[in-house]
């Protein structure tokens, strides 16, 4: 990437972070989060529309198709901010559907989705902890987040080497819901009916899921980063034995180790995003970088949020302490779009051996 393009990219990232702060401020608005959790549909459709207005849902969709045409650097920056803010709106899932609809040329549904007028969820998953898309016609589709807020489902059906995409309206769908730890829900859809809106190759499908995995890694980065910031605040202020507990060396050293993990997570996510934004990066290299980033983000986010609870002591174990919201979000996100173990196996398969 040339220096000029790099500068443009950095500007886009800065702008997107600034605009995120307006709708989903990092530290603030946890009252909103609490009000929405364990309610249906678990997010605020008005905020979803705002996100559409900001161009976030179609951030990665080419401008000529009504999107913002921005890169993964910008998308990850946005996802990080939303993760830090605990925003329950399913941006990564919506963006996945937008990308698939755009690639399939399904203009109508795409327009409504990227405008935030509708939520379209891609019903690709048939097995827990999986990352492949069998596309079995009758198979139940699992783990659809906030499915009771969706207007339609995008169901890939295997067709030869690729997929045909079925758009099934949510109305009348056979959908069951289970609550999730973060106050949202996972829906199980038994696909039925709907209309074909286009076709996709297997490679297109995989690349789209990889982007969703990287977006999820960025969400996790935001979650851990903010949880850590809150924990540092607590360490600086909470007194025990006549001193702020952050002055105790054992806790200082633990905080330092967590900081290293967060820094590695950030470097991993951002370098993977950078690679995605380089037109000339080989697919295997991109796949390896994304796999590494998702694995790191999942493990680090769970580590950091667990330790955040521990460092908060008793208060961290109460539901009224906000720090617990971060642990719960990490628990839900960590295994979405592939577990850490699965992604490490993908990394090993994709990445040629180190030279030394």
């Amino acid at each position, binding site marked *: 990437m040339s220096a000029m393009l790099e500068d443009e990219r950095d500007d886009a990232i800065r702008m997107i972070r600034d605009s995120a702060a307006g709708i989903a401020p990092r530290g603030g608005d946890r009252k909103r989060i609490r009000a929405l959790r364990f309610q249906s549909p678990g997010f605020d459709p008005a905020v979803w529309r705002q996100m559409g207005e900001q161009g976030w849902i179609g951030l990665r969709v080419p401008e000529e198709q009504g999107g913002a045409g921005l890169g993964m650097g910008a998308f990850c920056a946005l996802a990080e901010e939303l993760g830090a803010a605990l925003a329950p709106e399913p941006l990564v899932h919506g963006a996945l559907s937008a990308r698939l609809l755009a690639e399939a040329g399904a203009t109508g549904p795409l327009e409504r989705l990227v405008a935030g007028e509708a939520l379209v969820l891609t019903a690709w998953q048939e097995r*827990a*902890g999986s990352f492949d898309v069998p596309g079995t016609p009758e198979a139940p589709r699992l783990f659809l987040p906030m499915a009771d807020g969706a207007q339609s489902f995008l169901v890939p059906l295997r067709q030869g080497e690729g997929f045909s995409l079925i758009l099934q309206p949510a109305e009348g769908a056979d959908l069951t819901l289970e*609550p999730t*730890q973060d106050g949202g829900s996972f829906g199980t859809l038994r696909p039925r009916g709907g209309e074909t809106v286009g076709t996709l190759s297997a490679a297109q499908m995989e690349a789209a899921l990889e982007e969703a995995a990287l977006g999820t890694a960025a969400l996790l980065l935001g979650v851990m980063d903010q949880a850590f910031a809150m924990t540092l605040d607590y360490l600086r202020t909470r007194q025990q034995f006549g001193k702020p507990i952050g002055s105790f060396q054992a806790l200082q050293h633990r905080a330092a180790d967590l900081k290293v993990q967060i820094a590695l997570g950030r470097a991993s996510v951002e370098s993977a995003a950078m690679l995605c934004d380089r037109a000339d990066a080989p697919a295997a290299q991109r796949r390896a970088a994304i796999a590494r980033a998702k694995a790191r983000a999942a493990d680090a986010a769970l580590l950091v949020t667990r330790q955040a609870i521990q460092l908060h002591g008793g208060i961290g174990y109460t*539901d009224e302490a906000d720090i617990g919201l971060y642990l719960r979000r990490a628990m839900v*996100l960590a*295994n979405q779009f592939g*577990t850490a*173990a699965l992604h490490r196996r993908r990394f090993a398969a994709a990445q040629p051996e180190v030279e030394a």
Partner: protein
Amino acid sequence: MTDYNAMTDEDFRAEVRRFVESEYPAHLRNPPHRLHWQEGEEWFRIVQKKGWVAPGWPQELGGMGLDASKQIILIEEYERYGVARLPDHGVIMLGPLLIRFGTEAQRARFLPRILAGEDIWCQGYSEPGAGSDLASLRTEAVLEGDHYVVNGQKIWTTLATDANWIFCLVRTDKSGKKQEGISFLLIDMKSPGVTVRPIINLGLHDEFCEVFFDNVQVPRENLVGEPNKGWSMAKALLGFERIFLGSPRQSAYALSRLRMLAERMGVYDEPEFQERYTKLRCDLEDHKALYETFVAVLRRGEPLGADVSMLKLHQSDLFQRITELMLEIGGENAGLLKPMEGNRDLHPSGQFIEARPTTIYGGSSEIQRGILAKAVLELPG
């Protein structure tokens, strides 16, 4: 009265096993959270009928009179069978304290009501400003005539909503070192000025409470022992029960559920899983061996040393690591609020959350390491 101590260990163990296997309510086995009194009262009545409410109390006071060794067998068998812990602070904490430090009148008044299940006690030690640093507590009791007037707040009071009495450490003297000037007071929770507020925990259960005291009048005779000696009394009672914070039960139970989850998720036979699972199994077995060395100390009739902190430190860590692996292999199911497929045995997120506080309560892992470093390893400062 049966002299249980005269029985062989094997006979007594068999007796306990028969009892729980024939009489313990099946639906109460291995509950996912601490039972409220109402949830467990059914079992209490069975135990009461058997005369087994207070294993450690002397027989003349209505207890079973078990020595430490037999008490451990009892608890081992309860744990093995998944018997739930009832609100038992009266039996375990207050009873022994009254027996050792109380007056005849206090014993006569309070002990029978504990045995009868009429008084449910909770323990008021921790305060918002005094978590790991318990001695810095500030709930104050000022003697005015025949009454103490109590003001302040307790926190992490287990199942206070179920209790009608609370025993508290309160500050009665602010001069001197902070461990001094603390007294032990029994407070009727129906007294005006006592407010209980349940705290919803990370498991969304209301096991803990805050208890507020606003000019609560407590009769002077509810003071146990001498004034300003509460701290040393409470510490003296930290007896062999400390071993139970290090019991292998939680980890053993969690490990069995890890296996079920691994089988359900289809990863049980994968070598990567087997390696990690086997490491955890070895950890558990080694933990059991370590636990046994402390049980042996009790069997010899000796007191536990500060090194018992190792047990709690390791068991809580192990329990957490087991549940972390559950989360890893559970895939998206690890994000579910409720058990998978309605099967209570398949609940990675629930077990994971349940494991979180074990490194915080009962002396956090940081506190345990400090005890080990100073009292056992004799490191300076």
